[in-house]
């Protein structure tokens, strides 16, 4: 890119200007953190903080009240902790628990991308929080921002040996694509030694990083719990005799859209080929670089890899990639996915260990009067010698439990009543909501705080229809950015305004087909009125093994979406 175009870009796209002037993500963050008059960062720094895993938010419930009180918004920060592949140790889990209670709002959010998320951190506590996270050998760099984020991996506890291999690959990709800048260590860890004389370099990203966020997932069939097709780049593990041999490569997934702008659309990734396992890092790096060089930096709503692909064509992309690799990807191998959900409860692994998958409603770990989930998980972490795995469905797996420990952990699950969580309705256990109000700045409607209530009202309808054992993937987001992947729900809700949602139907059960808008801007009564007859009819007229998402297409409620570009058609 020439100097002149960078200048034009800087004028047109504020984020590009901010990156350009940031000196490898430093900006004025240090000064912002020290400013005692405001709980906020300087405006430009709120963009840069994302690359350090930090979003500035405010309690939107209090915004108006505080304005009248002559107080600034109640600024607070979201900190996202990268947990590659979702695996962490009990001691890391305990540190996260302590920090949540010391500096945050006494809750931990498990995200849909296998990260821990803290909410409600005040500016003056940011540095200590980040330092303590790093001290426990986790980090927050590149958890957000126009870079590759936390690399996901199916936590698959049953196929232990295969998982170990695939997980290792996910970690390597995560490490390989972590930004090189020493700004993170300087700002948060007071560590200037790393950098002292050497100028920063970003051999993969360059000083302007990527045009937009970049997401990578690794799936181990038959589980598509990571929703591999929602990612910019995906690797589908191919095994022979329980040994990893390589990966099918998927490119061009991405779910976020903007209401009222049909030129934005969700897109599922295409499978473009197969690479042996030792080529994975090279393939990942070159794909990131293609997006770095060809992604549309002039329009952030058209900057994800999905648009680069559709604008230039998939064949162009393959040619470009093969050129850069110096060899061609092989033809994709056969694979099959059966589900995007988690299997709850105790499961035996191949290596004589046990694992327990616990349903966590909307991924929120907290203590309430009747359900002391946070305390329970702390008690388990204190005795557990295996690991914990965060699932892409915001649930938690207590993994690698030895025969000897199983009884003790089971005792704690009973003692704290955690077993009850897995007795929630099937519908609820297959549902997800994003955070939304009061902290998310993008939310247009409630999500996490509302979905449980909506489910309370849907459950009797499902039960009355005799569908209580039928899993239906139901997802809700408070805005169209898709954190909870609502366009992949067999029933999807996207917030439009307080109390109003778009209703989408017809995604498939394995995360391989997008849903379609069925009703726009409807309230709760309308939601129930619309869904009740469809549910009743599904109960009566479904074919053998026919999923809800397939049924609504066969019976004509919506047309199947076969390509992202047809989402609005």
């Amino acid at each position: 890119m020439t100097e002149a175009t960078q200048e034009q870009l800087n004028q047109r796209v504020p984020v590009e200007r901010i990156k350009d002037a940031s000196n490898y993500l430093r900006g004025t963050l240090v000064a912002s953190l020290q400013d005692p008059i405001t709980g906020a960062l300087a405006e430009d720094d709120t963009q840069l903080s994302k690359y350090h895993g930090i979003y500035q938010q405010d309690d939107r419930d209090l915004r108006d009240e505080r304005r009248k009180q002559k107080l600034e918004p109640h600024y607070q920060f979201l900190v996202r902790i990268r947990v590659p592949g979702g695996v962490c140790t009990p001691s890391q889990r305990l540190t996260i628990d302590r920090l949540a209670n010391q500096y945050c709002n006494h809750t931990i959010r498990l995200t849909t991308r296998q990260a821990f998320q803290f909410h409600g951190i005040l500016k003056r506590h940011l540095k200590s929080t980040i330092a303590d996270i790093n001290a426990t050998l986790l980090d927050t760099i590149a958890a957000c921002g126009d870079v590759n984020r936390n690399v996901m991996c199916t936590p698959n506890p049953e196929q232990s040996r295969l998982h170990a291999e695939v997980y290792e690959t996910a970690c390597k990709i995560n490490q390989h694509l972590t930004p090189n800048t020493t700004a993170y260590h300087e700002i948060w860890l007071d560590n200037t030694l790393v950098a002292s004389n050497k100028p920063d370099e970003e051999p993969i990203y360059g000083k302007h990083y990527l045009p937009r966020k970049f997401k990578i997932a690794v799936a181990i069939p038959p589980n598509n719990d990571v929703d591999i097709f929602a990612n910019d780049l995906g690797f589908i593990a191919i095994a022979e005799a329980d040994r990893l041999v390589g990966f099918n490569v998927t490119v061009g997934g991405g779910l976020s859209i903007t209401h009222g702008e049909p030129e934005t659309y969700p897109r599922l990734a295409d499978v473009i080929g197969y690479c042996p396992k030792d080529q994975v890092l090279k393939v990942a790096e070159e794909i990131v670089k293609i997006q770095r060089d060809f992604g549309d930096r002039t329009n952030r709503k058209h900057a994800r890899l999905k648009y680069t692909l559709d604008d230039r064509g998939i064949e162009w992309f393959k040619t470009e990639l093969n050129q850069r690799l110096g060899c061609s990807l092989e033809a994709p191998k056969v694979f099959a996915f059966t589900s995007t959900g988690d299997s709850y409860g105790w499961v035996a692994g191949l290596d004589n260990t046990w694992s327990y998958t616990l349903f966590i409603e909307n991924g929120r770990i907290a203590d309430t009067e009747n359900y002391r989930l946070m305390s329970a998980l702390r008690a388990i972490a204190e005795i557990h010698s295996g690991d914990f795995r965060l699932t892409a469905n915001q649930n938690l797996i207590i993994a690698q439990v030895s025969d000897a420990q199983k009884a003790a952990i089971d005792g704690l699950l009973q003692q704290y009543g955690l077993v009850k969580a897995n007795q929630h309705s099937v519908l609820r256990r297959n549902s997800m909501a994003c955070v939304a109000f009061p902290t998310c700045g993008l939310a247009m409607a409630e999500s996490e705080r509302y979905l449980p209530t909506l489910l309370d009202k849907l459950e009797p309808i499902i039960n009355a229809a005799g569908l209580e054992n039928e899993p239906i993937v139901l997802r809700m987001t408070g805005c169209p950015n898709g954190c909870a992947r609502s366009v992949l729900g067999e029933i999807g809700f996207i917030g439009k305004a307080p109390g109003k949602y778009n209703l989408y139907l017809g995604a498939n059960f394995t995360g391989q087909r997008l849903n379609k808008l069925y009703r726009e801007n409807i309230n709760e009564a309308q939601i129930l009125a619309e869904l009740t007859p469809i549910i009743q009819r599904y109960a009566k007229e479904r074919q053998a093994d026919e999923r809800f998402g397939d049924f609504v297409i066969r019976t004509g409620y919506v047309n199947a979406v076969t390509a992202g570009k047809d989402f609005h058609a």
Partner: protein
Amino acid sequence: MPILLPGAEQTPLNAEQHRTAQQLIVGLSPEQLAWFAGYMTAQIVNNSTLPVNDLTIAEKHDAQITILVGSQTGNSSALALQIQTLANKRSLNAVIQHMEDYPLTQLKSAQFVLVIVSTYGEGEPPDNAKELYEQLLSKRAPSLNQTHFAVLALGDSSYEFFCKTGADFDQRLAELGATRILPRVDCDVDYEASAEAWMEDVLNALSSRLGAGAQQSAISAVPVFKTTASSYSRKNPFSAPLLEKIILNGRGSIKETYHIELSLENSGLSYAPGDALGVYPSNAPKLVDALLQALHFSSAEAVVIDAKQRAIGDALLHHYEITTITRPMLQKYATLAKLEALHQLLDDGHKEAFNVYCYGRDIIDLVTDFSVRHISPQAFVDCLRKQSPRLYSIASSLKRHPDEVHLTVAAVRYETYGRRRKGVASTFLADSVDENHPVPVYIHHNNNFKLPNDPAAPIIMIGSGTSIAPFRAFIEEREAMGATGKNWLFFGDQHFTTDFLYQTEWQRYLKKGVLTRMDVAFSRDQEQKIYVQQRMQERAKELYAWLENGATVYVCGDEKRMAQDVHTALQTIVAAESGNKDSAAYLTLLQKQKRYQRDVY
């Protein structure tokens, strides 16, 4: 904002003259008005034998009566003006001297000295009286054989060292050989009646000594016209309607600080930043009921106050102070009660026991603990002090908010001895005042807390909690004036998130450059408490540089808990940065130059 004359019936003008005068006034700029007023007054004073009311005589020769004033909040100054006017009416030659400008040696040649001085805190003299006070009580004090004197002491009997400064002056002047004209009079917060009686007595005594028709004062300077357009005053408060009441503390705060906006429309009242608003509170109706019940009175029973008959319920609600136990109150009550235990408490030997008893207790406890049978409502109210106004530093500038006055008020609520207690005035404002219940107010001018005349002069403001109020007024004023002087604000409170009073306003001023810098200390946001004085220490170098560049320092706040610490910090900073050990002298000089002003309580 045009100046409005009071109604014609309140002026010596007839309707026609009133109309013409109003038209003239509306057309004049403030500068033109000031010149006009000054010039006309000077003409009248110089050419007429009419008595001159409401005039401050700026300087006099051959003054025979020296009115020596030490004032913290301005009450003493106001009384000095009052007695000077009365003296002038009697053709007595009297001059006002402020203690900070008065060399001790001059006392030797002063013939008649009337000392009016207040006491605050733990028996301390006002800031501007401290130097003279210390000199007078020191061994260096000269013999004063030629001097005659009388002392009017102001104070608050709810404090242990009631009127101590006045008493010290009184005792020391006598020790030094001066002749007492009258016994000292100690005034409580409801000081008007006793002060006026003292004035009458002292002027009678002086008239007889100096002879009636003593020579007319010679005037050598243009007098300062010292009247406002308002007919409202401490004696005749204005009922100010409530415009707005906001709690400034965010959710989760243990503080309850109100921003209160009152209308002064059509009151004619005006004020300058640094002035205070006098507020006449009513008592909490529930407390009145409890007291009536404890005393077995019905609220309709009649009592006579100032020759007017009122129901006791009404009297307790509006006219008397019914919380604080003062020594005089207890004395009167003890006489009624004839209880040995009470008399013992009042015994000089049991001061500590008295203090212990009063701490955390109110009159409701007294009448419950020491109940008296068959006391009459009249006898009871005669024990009480009259309800006195409370002063609040004004938080607004008239230039920015014409016809409005803003206050920053912390509601005081606490529990002692199993009873929930409420600060009288603060909870009156917080709980009782609403759109239908205006606030009786008057302006209390405070000349000891004023912006520098030079708009280019830098200022440093130090306050915490509600003592931020006058600084909001200062900054509003400086912004409205387009003053170019740099402004530095230190502010402290408990928590950043909930207690950063007027946060968004300060942010705006910082952004616009009106506020040059701001340093904040939130004491309870970290394990170790941090206060404003620590922030000052951290900025010592720069702070001293500002002082050297002519900055005026303003401190507003609690004397014991804050102002003292800030003073010590200033001393340390000056000593460290100047290398001069005598930082006390440096600060004293600043005080003399009016570059170190305090509004402390």
